[in-house]
């Protein structure tokens, strides 16, 4: 390996650090407001030193049912992710292994579904959910997000499976597997990194999604993203309270990303050749 000059390393590190600070500054500001007394939040110039306080958290817990909000968010995003993968992975596999010459066209059609503005589908979907009695529940959002994400997962997994030579599945067939066995025991584990990428994508999309649950859920099924954004501008809710609440909307998804990322890297370095 060529030795990289120290000066260059320092330069790179400093650049990365500056960019990271630039991106994290708003987040830091939001987080820090949660620990400031209300009267110091808008002090100009901003004060870098302050007496940390947990008042804002107390306030947040008093106004919001934080546990229920986080639970809603978790149920909606995990539900969407699981359903999307459950449908999208086999669909992508079927398209990738199909001998029909229409299969790739089909896969791109699925990608196109993901491209349509979700809001165009929201009104008819709203009416549909109302008619079957799911409106206002977690299910309404899960089904809607699954509809969007599953199309994307299908297309993604189509590409992953397409890149996978069919030899291994054929080896599994001669080794005594059924078609289904070859899919579950060989194809699926081999594209694990792709599946984790899809899962991360679905998870983040649903976790941060505001618009759909805003329309499709009622008070008791409301996720934290909706609570956070609708609270903004309300008279008796301060920036500090929002900062405290923002903790609960960022920390779980960051943890989840870190957790899955570990598997992602592991999966990616797992392949042969």
């Amino acid at each position, binding site marked *: 390996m060529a030795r990289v000059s120290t000066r260059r390393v320092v330069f790179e590190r400093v650049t990365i650090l500056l960019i990271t600070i630039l991106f994290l500054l708003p987040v830091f500001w939001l987080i820090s407001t949660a620990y400031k007394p209300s009267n110091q939040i808008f002090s100009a110039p901003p004060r870098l030193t302050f007496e940390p306080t947990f008042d804002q958290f107390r306030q947040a817990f008093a106004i919001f049912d934080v546990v229920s909000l986080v639970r809603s968010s978790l149920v909606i995003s995990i539900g969407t992710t699981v359903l999307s993968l459950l449908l999208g992975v086999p669909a992508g596999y079927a398209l990738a292994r199909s001998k029909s010459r229409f299969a790739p066209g089909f896969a791109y059609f699925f990608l196109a579904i993901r491209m349509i503005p979700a809001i165009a589908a929201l009104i008819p979907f709203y009416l549909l959910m109302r008619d079957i009695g799911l409106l206002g529940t977690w299910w309404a959002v899960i089904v809607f997000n699954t509809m969007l994400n599953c199309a994307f997962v299908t297309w993604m997994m189509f590409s992953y499976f397409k890149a996978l030579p069919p030899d291994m599945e054929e*080896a599994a*067939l*001669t080794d*005594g597997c059924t078609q289904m066995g070859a899919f579950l025991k060989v194809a699926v584990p081999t594209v694990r990194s792709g599946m984790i990428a899809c899962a991360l994508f679905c998870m983040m999309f649903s976790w941060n999604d505001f618009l759909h649950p805003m329309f499709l859920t009622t008070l008791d099924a409301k996720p934290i993203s909706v609570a956070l954004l609708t609270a903004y501008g309300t008279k008796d809710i301060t920036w500090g309270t929002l900062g405290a609440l923002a903790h609960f909307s960022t920390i779980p998804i960051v943890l989840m990303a870190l957790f899955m990322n570990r598997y992602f890297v592991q999966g990616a370095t797992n392949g042969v050749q």
Partner: protein
Amino acid sequence: MAQISFENVSKTYPGGKAAALVNFNLNIKDGEFIVLVGPSGCGKTTALRMIAGLEDISGGTLRINDTVANEQAPRDRDIAMVFQSYALYPHLTVAENIAFGLKVRGIKTDVIAKKVRETADLLELTEFLDRKPARLSGGQRQRVAMGRALVRSPNAFLMDEPLSNLDARLRGQMRAEISRLQRMTAVTTVYVTHDQVEAMTMGDRVAVMNKGTIQQLDTPRRLYDKPANMFVASFIGSPPINFMEAAVVSHDGGPAVSCGDFLLPLGISGARLSPRIGGKVILGIRPEHLKVAPQSRSTGVLSAETSFVEDLGATLLLHMSGHGIAIGHANMVEDERDLMKTAPKLKALIDSSHRISRGDAIALTVDPSLVLFFDPETGVTL
């Protein structure tokens, strides 16, 4: 143990222009080692995948042990296949790769463990059992692929160019190893290769294929000595055989062939050419059958000029142009381009004790009984 037979099997791929297999007939006996050999695209892999059940059969009948297998699922055939790419399961360790087929078939864990250990011992894989395939060398992967097939004691082994990704030395080693394992287990084996050395050294019988049909199915010895046609003659043997167009003439009351200023009396070995006196014939002379003669312009001596010498160590490979001798008469051969490429010059393989260099004039003789004759119209051996 299994007999496998193809009866008039054909295959046309959807969208494929020419048929990949045409009227393919092959009877593989129980315990036999059959090699399918032929140029790229001749349908070897297609035939092999049909036996495994991985390829649909367009027409004809495939029988495994006297039952029609055309529609049988791969797992009901109990046949093990070694893929050219090895197709190891990347997410499983070597031990799990080898055990996979047994586990799928619901064999008890302790039995599996024992079999895996035995197979690993046999293939010297014991120290790698816990590794993933990504961390193995090409030769080790190849052995894992072999192990995965061996451990199951299947009805038949199918191998698709299993050695083509290995370096020359390892290839030689594994060639002997596979032959040994096959003799030991006596499991019917179909081995695909385009390497004629593998075909000659490994097969009980070798099927030489071209354009989806079998040109000749025979023992390696007979393929070399008595090829059925020009295609087989040119495919078997390395360096490839020399073809030259010659006239059949009468000489001292017997048949002889004449080609430029080379006149070869045939003696008794030419009796079958007597009816053709006055006609044309294609001669096939293997480079290793040409011998250096004392320089002279007598009958039976072929004089030529060396245009290029390859020193192979024990032997010299001479590339020569003969006086008035047309080499490699291509229009009689199935695959014209192949022959034009492989035999544009007269080739001779001689002992390296001869001191011959570029530009030297050289005289060669050949034992007439070793010369092959082909019909110029059909390319069939006379």
